[in-house]
């Protein structure tokens, strides 16, 4: 199944904005509503838009499933690695070893309502990125594989 040229051009134009919005949601997860799951889902929805606009064969030539699988595994390894790194540094598993440390993402905040600062929250942004990568890859690969099941039937 192949959509018309208008739809494809539209999806081409839309995709960068959806992508940027998704990554905004991921990166500001600790300040505004959102986070890894939500942002990853938004990016994956954008990918779904592209996949729907083009035919499966064209998308399959564009994106390799192995790369998406690698991306998904990589996100998860980053996620669990952030937890394990604390253990190597002498803290318990999943201890937030970056929070209030002054280094990367280590600024403190004043309690109470405030506009917030991006460079806070310890390893939470790292985990947001990891989860965002994982959800993006995972949901896209689910759609691709399910479409592969449809297309072989010739429907």
């Amino acid at each position: 199944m192949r959509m018309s040229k208008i739809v494809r051009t539209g999806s081409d134009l839309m995709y960068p904005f959806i992508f940027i919005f998704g990554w905004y949601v991921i990166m500001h997860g600790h300040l505004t509503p959102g986070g890894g799951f939500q942002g990853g889902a938004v990016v994956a929805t954008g990918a779904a838009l592209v996949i729907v606009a083009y035919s499966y064969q064209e998308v399959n030539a564009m994106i390799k499933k192995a790369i998406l699988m690698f991306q998904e595994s990589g996100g998860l390894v980053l996620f669990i690695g952030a937890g394990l790194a604390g253990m190597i540094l002498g803290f318990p598993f999943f201890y937030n070893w970056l929070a209030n440390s002054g280094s990367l993402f280590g600024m403190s905040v004043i309690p109470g309502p405030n506009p917030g600062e991006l460079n806070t929250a310890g390893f939470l942004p790292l985990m947001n990125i990891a989860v965002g990568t994982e959800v993006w890859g995972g949901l896209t690969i689910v759609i691709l594989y399910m479409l592969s099941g449809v297309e072989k039937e010739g429907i």
Partner: protein
Amino acid sequence: MFWNLPYISVVLLTLIGISIIILKKNLIKIFMGVNILTSAVNLFIIAVGYRDGGIAPIYTNAPSTNMVLPTPQALCLTSIVIGVATTALLLTFAMLLYRTYGTTDVDKIRELRE
């Protein structure tokens, strides 16, 4: 009683979800019922954590500190992602079954019995 509106809708949605699951015969329809049931449970969990006049538990430019409970929202996020994973796997099963059995009617997918 009137203020319990979300809980009452949870009960009604549970009723509809269970009805779809038991009474309908099409696999895809049954999975939609599962989706409705999951959403009903999610709504229930969120409703449990609501406080009258509370705001979302986000300090960024929040006007006050009377906040709704954050844990139900965390649980609900988890359950939504679990729901989509479950739905994807279930639909995969349905598609593969259609390939071999040529139907999505549960009355006809019964080679395994006794």
